[in-house]
């Protein structure tokens, strides 16, 4: 109990300072440190520092370790041989048309590429339909890309050998494995985005055809293809690039990444805003029979719930009833 009292003696602010001192982040409050040292009967300082020091001897190669684990898992039939790219399409007429279009595009781009470079290099194309989102693609370098609906990503077979290049149309979130010597470039139509290792979101399908980039971590460079402007973006910023115009601003929309995380948060927005987001994130179509319903305000988070639960939540909150007609929910006052 005596020991506990000693701990209570320091305020949270002092613990913060002490940890900065011991972790060598700063060293200007020597008084606090010496007071702590004088009372340190349990070698807190020694162990705290040792945890870091006793390990600085040998580099750990994560890629090598992952390959080793991966081959052990595949030897045991627990994981597919090579990293697989999942392609699950909905078999509809649209799919067939899309497949033909993609095939033609693919043949076209291969021919263009051969014409351009005189080499034949295979392209891997991953695409999502209207019903798919958050399709995860893991590239050979360990980078992960999450595709939103109606999005197409492609890269060449020689990815990584001559720079890491991919082409995107639609919307996707990128988590790029760090490699200082091998920059990662996204060709996004009107702009290209260059990074070393960070996470960011790109939209190429905006109505005004501007390319929009939102940075979550790290730093990103966006270059216009038709103008010579460059934008350097820090975390939290959105940059837009069109042939005529480029600008950056701080993102103020807490639901910007919701298509990927499934989490929507609100602070008194009206239901028409909420319904627009639900359409975007959960592909839910909600129609209010009476426009008054749309003026209600919403404050609870929606976090990966099923459509059924979401609609019931809304109905209970405002004493509404719903009917489902095909894929569309109709709301009416009780």
């Amino acid at each position, binding site marked *: 109990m005596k*020991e506990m009292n000693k701990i209570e003696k320091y305020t949270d602010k002092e*613990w913060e300072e002490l940890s*900065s001192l011991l972790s060598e982040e700063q060293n200007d409050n020597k008084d606090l440190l010496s007071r702590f040292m004088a009372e340190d009967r349990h070698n807190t300082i020694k162990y705290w520092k040792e*945890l870091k020091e*006793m390990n600085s001897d040998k580099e750990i190669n994560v890629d090598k*370790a992952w390959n*080793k684990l991966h081959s052990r898992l595949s030897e045991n039939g627990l994981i597919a041989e090579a990293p697989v790219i999942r392609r699950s399409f909905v078999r509809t007429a649209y799919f067939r048309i899309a497949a033909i279009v993609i095939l033609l595009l693919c043949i076209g781009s291969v021919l263009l590429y051969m014409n351009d470079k005189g080499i034949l290099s295979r392209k891997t194309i991953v695409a999502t339909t209207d019903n798919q989102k958050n399709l995860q693609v893991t590239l050979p370098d360990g980078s992960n890309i999450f595709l939103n609906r109606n999005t197409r990503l492609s890269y060449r077979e020689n990815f990584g050998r001559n720079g890491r290049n991919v082409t995107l149309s639609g919307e996707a979130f990128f988590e790029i494995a760090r490699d200082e010597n091998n920059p990662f470039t996204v060709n996004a139509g009107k702009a290209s985005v260059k990074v070393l290792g960070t996470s960011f979101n790109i939209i190429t399908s905006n109505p005004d055809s501007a390319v929009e980039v939102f940075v979550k971590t790290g730093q990103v460079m966006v270059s216009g293809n038709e103008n010579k402007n460059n934008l350097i973006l820090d975390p939290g910023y959105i940059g837009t690039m069109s042939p005529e115009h480029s600008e950056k601003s701080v993102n103020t929309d807490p639901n910007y990444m919701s298509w990927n995380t499934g989490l929507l948060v609100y602070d008194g927005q009206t239901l028409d805003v909420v319904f627009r987001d639900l359409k975007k994130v959960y592909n839910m179509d909600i129609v209010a029979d009476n426009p008054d319903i749309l003026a209600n305000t919403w404050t609870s988070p929606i976090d990966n719930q099923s459509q059924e639960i979401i609609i019931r939540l809304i109905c209970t909150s405002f004493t509404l009833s719903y009917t489902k007609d095909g894929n569309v929910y109709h709301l009416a006052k009780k």
Partner: protein
Amino acid sequence: MLRDSEIIRRIKQGDEGQFESLFRSSYVSLVRYAKTLIRDHDTAEEIVQDLFFRIWKDKEKLQIESSLNGYLYRAVHNRCLHYINHNKVVEKYAREMAFSETESNETPGDILNYRDLQAKIAGILERLPEKCGKIFCMSRFEGLKYSEIAQKLSVSIKTVEANMGRALKEFRKALAEQ
């Protein structure tokens, strides 16, 4: 950054990409943690790889009550102890590493062996919230600076400072417990 529950759910469903990213993000710090007890580098790497092998093999049965980080460190800790007990080298190691360079101002009561220290850390990580434990490990095991941690987790340096303060307080508390 996804929350633990979401990561666990995706892995249970057989999401290989998620499994790989968990491996990549925690491997270095788990190996270093294993090395606090198992002095042999290659064995430490094997222990951590084997843990991930089992996690994937039995992913349907995965039950995690504490934070994911706490779970991984506790599992590595148990595996280290198991390894040592099976190799009958515990006494030798304990003696070798329990402070060959013991400083003169320490009384015997002050000296923990590394097995206790590692157990305490596993305990601390189970008590600390997700993010706090992660930040502690990134600082102590991966040797990252506050600014680097802030960037990797996309949080502010202030958040890192506050969480490190909290972690140090728990660390001290755990050392004081007998």
